[in-house]
């Protein structure tokens, strides 16, 4: 068995996606969503509901009255924001924490939230629906968590190797395993029955020219660089990964669009920070 086949068979044994996350994903594809039913379902998972309410009540939104129910949070923040929040909280709550000195869970989640808000900010100038981009950003590095569960010891030494060589984690993973977390992430996303466009974004966010042309991978690729460049994960030895020039050209962002994306990313990131606490 090759290492890749071994990884794929291990991914099949990882936990199933949290049920509430699955229902949220399903409600996105349905034309008419029963908001009351969805709100009731979300409220049943107290850990997730509490995180969502914490965000809705953060000073960022500056609401006068306390938001005390998921239904109110949907009214105030909008269905798509709450759905994104629930999915974020479900994924955060649903994946077991690995244990490795060079891996910081806080930093990981800061990074993926940063990429999610950057990808969502890119939706406006690119005239794309924001929600799938937010979700693709949020899940783009999920393969790192999967590999942490499958290969705890090896991944620890790969992390140390990336530090020592001052290279990106994807490069260090490639060197050691012959594949990287984007492949593992796409496998997990397939196992969890994510929509095809999300699977494609996870698989190709480091090599966007290999993804579906005009798909989400190129946007997540760019959002990833933005999150690193704005120091959103607060890692001292961080680095901005290489951007594929053809992908950058295809996105065709002018200076004004770019600066407003950076502004929106910074503000959006601050609004989601209470999720992490």
């Amino acid at each position, binding site marked *: 068995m090759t290492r890749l086949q071994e990884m794929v068979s291990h991914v099949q044994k990882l936990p199933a996606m949290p049920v509430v996350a699955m229902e949220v994903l399903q409600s996105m594809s349905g034309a008419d969503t029963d908001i009351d039913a969805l709100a009731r379902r979300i409220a049943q998972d107290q850990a997730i509901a509490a995180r969502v309410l914490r965000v809705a009540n953060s000073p960022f939104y500056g609401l006068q009255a306390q938001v005390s129910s998921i239904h109110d949070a949907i009214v105030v923040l909008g269905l798509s924001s709450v759905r994104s929040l629930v999915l974020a909280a479900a994924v955060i709550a649903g994946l077991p924490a690995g244990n490795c000195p060079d891996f910081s869970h806080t930093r990981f989640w800061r990074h993926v939230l940063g990429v999610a808000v950057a990808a969502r900010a890119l939706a406006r100038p690119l005239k794309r629906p924001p929600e799938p981009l937010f979700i693709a950003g949020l899940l783009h590095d999920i393969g790192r968590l999967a590999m942490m569960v499958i290969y705890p010891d090896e991944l620890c030494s790969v992390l140390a190797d990336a530090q020592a060589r001052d290279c990106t984690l994807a490069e260090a993973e490639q060197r050691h395993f012959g594949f990287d977390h984007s492949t593992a992430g796409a496998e997990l996303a397939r196992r969890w029955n994510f929509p095809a466009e999300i699977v494609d974004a996870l698989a190709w966010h480091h090599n966007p020219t290999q993804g579906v042309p005009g798909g989400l991978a190129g946007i997540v690729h*760019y959002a990833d660089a933005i999150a690193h460049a704005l120091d959103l994960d607060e890692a001292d030895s*961080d*680095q*901005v990964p290489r951007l594929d020039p053809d992908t950058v050209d295809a996105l065709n962002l002018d200076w004004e669009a*770019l600066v407003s994306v*950076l502004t929106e990313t910074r503000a959006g990131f601050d609004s989601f920070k209470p999720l992490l606490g």
Partner: protein
Amino acid sequence: MDDALTLPLSEVIPGTVLAAPVIDPSGAVLLPAGLSLTAAHLDSLQRRGIASVVVVPAEDPEALAIRRERIRARVMYLFRHTAQEPGSQALLHAVLAFRQEAGK
């Protein structure tokens, strides 16, 4: 705010940013925190008998230059392997301008 400064109204110049709202004796908010004061605001506050306001201290040019350089060095460090890459140029320059403007 840690570094807010209370100044007599007579010493405040236009362009100064409020660190706290200006509140009249009845408790009504006259001007919100974060507002950049204009000459018209200052005249109006004087007419209403406001003696002092809480403002964000102006940064001296030397401190500003040091901070901008610190941010530039950090951004160049983050782009240490990619600053010469064609795909990274636009992002590098936009991030540099944005972060220096934002001050972080």
